[in-house]
């Protein structure tokens, strides 16, 4: 199955199950969870169902485009179901059927894995889903987001699209994935992988980035205090990404690292509370909206 077909099939599947099909959020981030469609919407009492593909950047995982399994940027297909429906596992397994994975022909397991994102003050309990011994999805029931307890616990499904594609296309190198019939993953991303690796590990200007981190942090705090949640959150995302680059660049000592993570987590906490406050003032508009609440 072609990469783009697989993506579309999953988007359509979840769309048919009542999820909004949204676009990636246009700011650099390390995981689909960081999109406001997840981070903010999983807070508070309002229901929410969404699916989107999120290009996710992990500068430390960059390998100059030479490693068959690791890359600077990969694609997560992210599903949020809030509240988590009773049959959420079945819905998930059916989504695998939608991309041609017949559970009767494979060994599918839910193996304990407790997800945590220290920079977001977020954690949950759940599993890695294994397909014939390979992890293909992170399945989490959120318990806390932005250091705030979840009113309504969401189920988060994060599909590692490249992994699944490599399995379905029976190939050993990520860059050989067929995006469509003619163009491979490597054709699209290999050069960028190389460049991002050079930048993250060798060229990124440490002083500039440290300055940017401080600027973004300050701007985030200022903007949030002016009740502008979304612009504020965008600066939280930017500061998080800058931190990741600095980290990959080896510019941050172990203790500084804890400190930086604490600063981002603090921002995430402030924005989480501001968001809840804002929605409350708006009267939690999605609480009574048809088509979001129930199947």
């Amino acid at each position, binding site marked *: 199955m072609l990469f783009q077909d697989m993506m579309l099939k999953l988007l359509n599947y979840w769309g048919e199950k009542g999820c909004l099909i949204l676009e990636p959020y246009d700011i650099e981030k390390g995981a689909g969870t960081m999109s406001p469609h997840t981070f903010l919407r999983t807070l508070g009492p309002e229901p929410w169902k969404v699916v989107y593909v999120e290009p996710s950047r992990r500068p430390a995982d960059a390998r100059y485009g030479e490693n068959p399994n690791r890359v600077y940027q990969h694609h997560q297909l992210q599903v949020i179901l809030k509240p988590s429906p009773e049959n959420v596992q079945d819905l998930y397994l059916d989504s695998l059927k939608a991309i041609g994975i017949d559970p009767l022909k494979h060994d599918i397991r839910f193996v304990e894995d407790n997800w945590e994102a220290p920079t977001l003050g977020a954690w949950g309990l759940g599993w890695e889903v294994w397909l*014939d*011994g390979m992890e293909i999805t992170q399945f989490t029931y959120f318990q806390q987001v932005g250091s705030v307890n979840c009113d309504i616990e969401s189920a988060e499904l994060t599909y590692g699209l490249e992994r699944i594609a490599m399995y379905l296309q029976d190939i050993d190198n990520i860059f050989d994935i067929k995006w469509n019939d003619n163009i491979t993953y490597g054709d699209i991303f290999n050069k960028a992988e190389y460049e991002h690796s050079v930048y993250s590990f060798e060229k990124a200007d440490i002083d500039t980035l440290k300055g940017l981190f401080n600027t973004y942090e300050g701007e985030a705090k200022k903007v949030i205090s002016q009740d502008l949640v979304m612009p504020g959150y965008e600066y939280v995302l930017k500061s998080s990404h800058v931190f990741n680059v600095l980290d990959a660049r080896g510019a941050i000592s172990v203790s500084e690292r804890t400190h930086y993570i604490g600063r981002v987590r603090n921002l995430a906490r402030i924005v989480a509370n501001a968001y809840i406050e804002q929605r409350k003032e708006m009267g939690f508009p999605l609480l009574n909206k048809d088509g979001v609440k129930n199947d």
Partner: protein
Amino acid sequence: MTKSYLLEIGMEELPARFVGDTVNQLKSNAEALLKDERVEYSDITIYTTPRRLTLIINGLEDHNTKVEEKVKGPSKKISFDDEGNPSKALLGFMRGQGVGKESIIIDEVNGEEYVFVNVVKVSKSLEEVFATNMENFIKKINFPKTMKWGGKNLRFARPIRWIVSILDDKIIPFEFEGIPVSNITRGHRFLGNNSIEIDHVNNYEELLKNNYIIVNQLDRKDIIRYCSEKLVREKGGSILQDEELLDEITNIVEYPTPIIGRIKDEYLNLPMDVITTPMKEHQRYFPVIDDKGRLMPYFITVRNGDDKYSDIVIKGNEKVLGARLEDAKFFFKEDIKHPFEDYVNRLENITFQEKLGNMYQKSKRIQKLAVKIGDYLDVGEETKKNIERAGYLSKADLTTKMVSEFTELQGKMGMEYAKLSGENEIVSLAIFEQYLPRYSGDQLPSTTAGAVISIADKLDSIAGLFAIGIQPTGSQDPFALRRSALGIINIILDKKLNLFLNELIDFALYVYVEENGLAFDYNKVKSEVIDFFIGRIKNMFLDSGIRYDIIESIIKTQSDDIFDLKIRADKLNDWLDKEGLSDILTAFNRVSTLAEKAISNNVKRDLLTEDEIELYDSYNNIEEKALSLINKKEYDKALDILTTLKEPIDNYFEKVMVMVDDESLKNNRLGLLRKIYDIMMKVCDLSQIVNK
């Protein structure tokens, strides 16, 4: 006719590591419940699969047992007025119990008379027992980590999706946070029916089996073991036994089908752990060995399902494992391009702890401390050289590609790489053994060099982290210092090492000052570390079944030789069976109480009165013998000798008044008692022993 009750809690996949403890809780909670409700039964069975916790109680007696109970009312004093008529208090009590005046009985409790009535209570029916109790029964189960889901007001290890509650063939419903409670269960996720009616408790196992669920965990374990062995026997091998892995696998499948996969022969050139670690830790596969214990190019994965399409499943698993082993092969090839020693310098790039410097500094400290411990133990020249070398190389593998990727291989790779670089066996083994014991009950270092490096590594961490104020508090112990201290204690006891804690800690702290220039409040930190060790020693002795008072008694001697403390504890434990112990303890307690007031243990013979001479002479008679026994660590025999003083002590106190006004006389008498006390304290503090 007896009945059976069945409760099945249907969940999403329960973490395997929770299962063992949960089974115990279910059993003991059920026993307690049935006892409280006075229900008779014959046996309790607990079954678990990843998706269900099942309680079956057989042989339930369903008759309404009548139980007579004596209920206490108000005191007689306030129950009747002057004319002997019932007071308001008594009338209220009778109304509450539903009885008339004729049922009243008067009985005495602690010297006061009270009103009583005999009431007959009928025990609940079985239906009532289970209908009213099972909600709490489920909520009472504890897990190491719990979660909420779907907005329910409930915490559990993973979401509960259904509950079966039946008495023989009858549903016993109860309200449970909107989760269905019925006689409907679910079969295997893919192979079974998603809605199975349990028509009778007795048919439960059979019905599930028809739906691809082996509900009895012991059966699953047998199947896994038997079928796995069968598969590998055909290849001329056997399973690399690992009971813990077997248990884990048993608890992550409902319908186990072992299948065999193959790896490329070339991987077998890698060190064994490099292959078995990804197999076991990452993939939950059983490695396969031949009759000489060498790895064979196979593995067993246990599929949660039947054997259809096994070829697809095995191909996928082979691919995943192959990718990991290919990585490992690459790392190994890269790592051995340089002599192992070259990796030591790279340790400067790895932080141990921000304030305590990098790992290069740590390995230098380990080396110094280890050599010093070798000196204390008076090891030979050869061993000392080995210790010095192993200390130097101890952390080098942390900078290799292999250990950076597979951190569980620390120590093991160090050993392999050291050997390949021509280091001797003892040095190589010590590099691995520095990490032992890794968990409670793990193997301990086998060699002196390994034991010494292990103690040095752990003690260095404890000393350093205490010096910068990062000691364990409550449940917080991020550097696992408690486990490290326990490890040190276990090694010392196992190897029967005579080491003095004071000296050890002194030197460990001193190395930080010398090597790192670390500044801290030396005396404060030292006493904190000593207290920390004493706390661990107490806990460990308690866990090994030594009585609390014995531990206190030997700790009070201020001995800081851990192995010696253990000898004392064991000897004292046996000695306390002695006849007439109680009187001996009483006598020595009197001595202790007064001796603590003494300013010295000087005794002037010419100040002794006639009544004091007996004790004085008796003491002098035994002193030398007792001290020699103490030196030989024959503490029980020393106590035998010391306690011959019991009679003279008793006589002494009968005739002599110690706390007299005459200061010199008083001090002389206290001095004599102090002598006895001092020598007793060289063995143990008898005043800590509970006198029953």
